[in-house]
Structures are given as structure tokens and as C-alpha cells.
């Protein structure tokens, strides 16, 4: 138990980071039936902005700035690359998403010159070491799952109890009927991207605090794993994405714990294939009824 405990603590933390990204995938899928391939890159941009902002500006400006820039980026991606394709076949939107992903990576390449940007304790307090249950770890590891659960609770409240949440759920089911109620579909979709990007930005700040540097491809792996988590939990379902993310985070770390570090990524993707074969709708997924 003593030996495994640090891995459990880490696993829960990694799971929380995946969850924050996975929600972005699942929300957008829920409303547009689109896998937003650019989401991992939005996450990477948030990391880059954090590196730049925290070295140049005081914390209380830098962190809100990271959130604001990321949210704006998510909003713009939707307006520029997805909205004009609202009535196009779904495949076109997906290809556009792949295009956006590479565009962002290459813009980041242009800005960084391709050099990984070193992360040097961007947010000091959460990078401090603490000892919990005899295990020494960074404070961020403990904060991540708590913050994740808190944000998810706020999000679930927003979706279940508020007017805009009700509009989101209605639009996710039936665009046209929602429009007949007077719901402005484009605002609802923009709002969805804003939430997804906001959570990805929070995730990025927690994630990159633990990493030595942010490279232009840094969004790839966590993005893919969060995507697997969303599919595993049942894409379109928020609780599904969160549960899926925590399970994947825990499994990865436990596999590292028993000595198969290099196998842990392979496990995640093997899980994706297994889920798609055995239960394509995932843990909490709804029956697939194609939107007409």
C-alpha cells in the first residue's frame, strides 16, 4: 500500500486534468456531433500563454489573461472554422477541425521558433511540495481533483438549472425546435466552446505546472487521452467524461506503479479499441440516434 499510494494520488490528479479537457470534447460533441480535433491544441496554447504571461506579468493578471486568451481562441475557432459549415456534411466540419489543429500547431511553431518553452514554477504556491499520508508531492497534485470536482459541479448546475443550460440541452437534441423557441443557436454553440476552452485553460495551468516545458505538440497526448476518456465515458455525457478521465488517469499511474511505465500509454489506446468494440456508447452514453 505504501508503495502504491503515490501512484494513486498521482492517478487521481492526472484524471482530473484529463477530465477538464474531456469535458470540452464531450460538450462540443453533444451539441454539434463534432469531434473538435483542435481542442488539444487549444490546451497547448493555454500552456504557452501561461509560460509567457507568468514570466512577464504578476500572477493576478497573468492567470486571468490565460483564461481570457484561451476562451477567445475557442470562440474564434468556432466562428471562423465551424460556423460557416453549419449546414455542410459533418465530414467537412471534421476535416476543418483537423485543419485548425495543424494551423494552431504551426502558428505556435512560428511564435516559439519550434523551441519548447521552459516552465519555471509559473504558479509558485501550487508548485510547493507538501507531505500527505507520508507521501511527498506537489500541492497541485492535491488541488487538481478538488478543483476539477468543483468546476464540474458548477457546470452541472449551470446545465441542469439555468436558462442557458436548458437552451443548451434543447439545442443538443433538436436545432430546429430549439430555434422555434427563440433560442439563438449560434450563441448557444459559442457559449459551449467558451466553457470547453475555459476548462481546458484551467486544465493546462494545472497540467503544465508539473512539466518542464511546453512544446507545440504538447497538446497532442493529453488531448488524445482526454478524448479516449470522453469516448470511454460515453461521448456527449459530462459525468461520463469525468468518470472516464479519472479511471484512465488512475489506470495509467497504477500501471506505472507496477513497473510498466512504457506500457501505460499503449494501455489507454488499447482501452479505446476495446470500448469501441464492446460498448461503443461508453459507460454513460446514450443510444446513438442520428440527428436528422
Amino acid at each position, binding site marked *: 500500500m505504501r508503495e502504491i499510494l503515490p501512484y494513486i494520488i498521482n492517478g487521481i490528479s492526472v484524471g482530473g486534468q484529463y477530465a477538464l479537457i474531456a469535458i470540452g470534447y464531450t460538450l462540443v460533441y453533444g451539441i454539434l456531433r463534432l469531434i473538435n480535433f483542435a481542442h488539444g491544441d487549444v490546451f497547448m496554447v493555454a500552456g504557452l500563454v501561461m509560460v509567457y504571461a507568468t514570466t512577464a506579468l504578476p500572477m493576478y493578471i497573468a492567470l486571468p489573461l490565460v483564461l481570457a486568451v484561451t476562451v477567445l481562441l475557442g470562440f474564434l475557432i468556432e466562428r471562423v472554422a465551424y460556423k460557416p459549415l453549419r449546414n455542410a456534411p459533418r465530414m467537412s466540419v471534421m476535416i476543418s477541425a483537423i485543419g485548425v489543429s495543424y494551423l494552431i500547431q504551426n502558428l505556435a511553431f512560428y511564435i516559439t521558433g519550434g523551441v519548447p518553452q521552459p516552465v519555471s514554477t509559473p504558479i509558485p504556491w501550487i508548485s510547493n511540495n507538501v507531505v500527505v499520508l507520508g507521501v511527498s508531492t506537489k500541492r497541485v497534485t492535491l488541488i487538481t481533483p478538488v478543483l476539477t470536482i468543483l468546476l464540474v459541479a458548477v457546470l452541472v448546475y449551470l446545465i441542469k438549472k439555468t436558462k442557458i443550460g436548458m437552451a443548451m440541452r434543447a439545442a443538443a437534441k433538436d436545432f430546429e425546435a430549439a430555434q422555434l*423557441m427563440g433560442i439563438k443557436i449560434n450563441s448557444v454553440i459559442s457559449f459551449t466552446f467558451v466553457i470547453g476552452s475555459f476548462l481546458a485553460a484551467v486544465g493546462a495551468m494545472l497540467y503544465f505546472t508539473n512539466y518542464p516545458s511546453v512544446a507545440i505538440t504538447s497538446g497532442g497526448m493529453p488531448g488524445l487521452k482526454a478524448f479516449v476518456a470522453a469516448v470511454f465515458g460515453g461521448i456527449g455525457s459530462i459525468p461520463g467524461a469525468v468518470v472516464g478521465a479519472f479511471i484512465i488517469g488512475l489506470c495509467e499511474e497504477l500501471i506505472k506503479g507496477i513497473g510498466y511505465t512504457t506500457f501505460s500509454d499503449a494501455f489507454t489506446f488499447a482501452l479505446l479499441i476495446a470500448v469501441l468494440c464492446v460498448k461503443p456508447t461508453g459507460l454513460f452514453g446514450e443510444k446513438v440516434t442520428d440527428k436528422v
Partner: protein
Amino acid sequence: MLKIENLHVAYGGIQALRGISLEVPDGKIVTLIGANGAGKSTTLRTITGLVKAASGSIQWNGEELLGKSIDRINSAGIAMSPEGRRVFADLTVLENLKLGAYLRKDKPEIEKDLQWVYDLFPRLKERSWQLAGTLSGGEQQMLAVGRALMSRPKLLLMDEPSLGLAPLVVQDIFSIIREINRQGVTILLIEQNANMALKVADLAYVLETGNITLSGTGAELLANEKVKEAYLGKHRK
């Protein structure tokens, strides 16, 4: 009063409406009958703003509706209960009704209208916490109508409210249509069930392949030989 003049609508190259003109006077029930593909749904969808017209005009109390957004048209007092009901299946009955009042801000009045809808459809009140998807077809139709009424429309557009419902339920729906109209809501109804529709209608139009070919009071069309032949079944006694 709703006044449509020389309305043309096309989907791609296909002419769905070829210059129709019709009037829906305040306080009346007006019906539009016709075969599948005649352009009935297109007419309603163009009024709501879901479909863009090629040319013509739709005047609502003197205000031009063509080119206005769907939410503007809804706020102007026009609501639709769409074909196939289209209730939000995984939202509760109450949430569906609240969405009907999405654009309204007057909370106490919304509450009043909710009671009004519950009085019209007591079944919806009993089931207000149930998911709309678990309702029967007739109840879903009632919900679709109730949801449209929650915007407190002056004009209610109804697209095939009897579709797929058992004959007894159809009777209920039509008596509710009369009741809603008695309470001051103007109704534009389209129906395949021409017999029922003409019986409740003050005014009726027959739509054939994008043109209006006949018009008159409900009773006149009910007695018209051509209508009998084409829509009511020739051998009906």
C-alpha cells in the same frame, strides 16, 4: 392579421411554393389542406422564419416578416407546434414548457400562462416532472401545443397535430384547438385529415403543388365536389 402575398419558396432548384396568397384574419381558425408535398409545411416554416422565401411578402399586422430572424418572429406573437411534435425528449414536461417562454422576461405572467396551459391540458400538470420522451403520442402533441402557447402567441401555427394519433385522441386535439381559439388565439392549421380540419375551420385553402387552387369557408369546401373527390374520399355518404 396575417397576410401572405405572392409567396415564392424554392429548395435548390425545386419550386415548393409558386406565388401563393392567403389571409388569416384575427380570431379565426384557418386551415390549409393538400396532399403530401403540396407545400403546406413549407408555408408554415416560411412564416416562422425557418425557411427563407425567394420573393413575395408576409405581413403580420402591417409588419413585414420576411427577412426577420426566427426569434424576432416569435417575439412578434407567432408560435408553431411543429410537425412530428418535436418535444425535447430528455427534458421534463415543465422544462419543455419553460422553453416555450424562452424569450419572455415577465416571470409572474409566465407563471400565469403555465397555469393556463395546465388548465387546458391537465395531463401535462400530472406529468410535469416526467421526461417528455416518456409521454404517449397524444400527450406529446399536447405538450408541443402547450409549449407553443407558452410564448403567449396571437397566432398559433399547427403542423399536422393529428398525425399518427388514435381517432379518439384526434377528437381531443381538435376540441382543444377550438378551445384555444375561443380564448382568443388565431390559428393556422395544416392537416392531412381534411375532414376534421374543414369542420373546425372558419376559412380554408386548398394547396396543390405549390399553388392555391381553391378557397372558401370550411363548410363550403366540405361541400365542394372537387374537394370531396380529392381529399375526403369520393364515395363518402
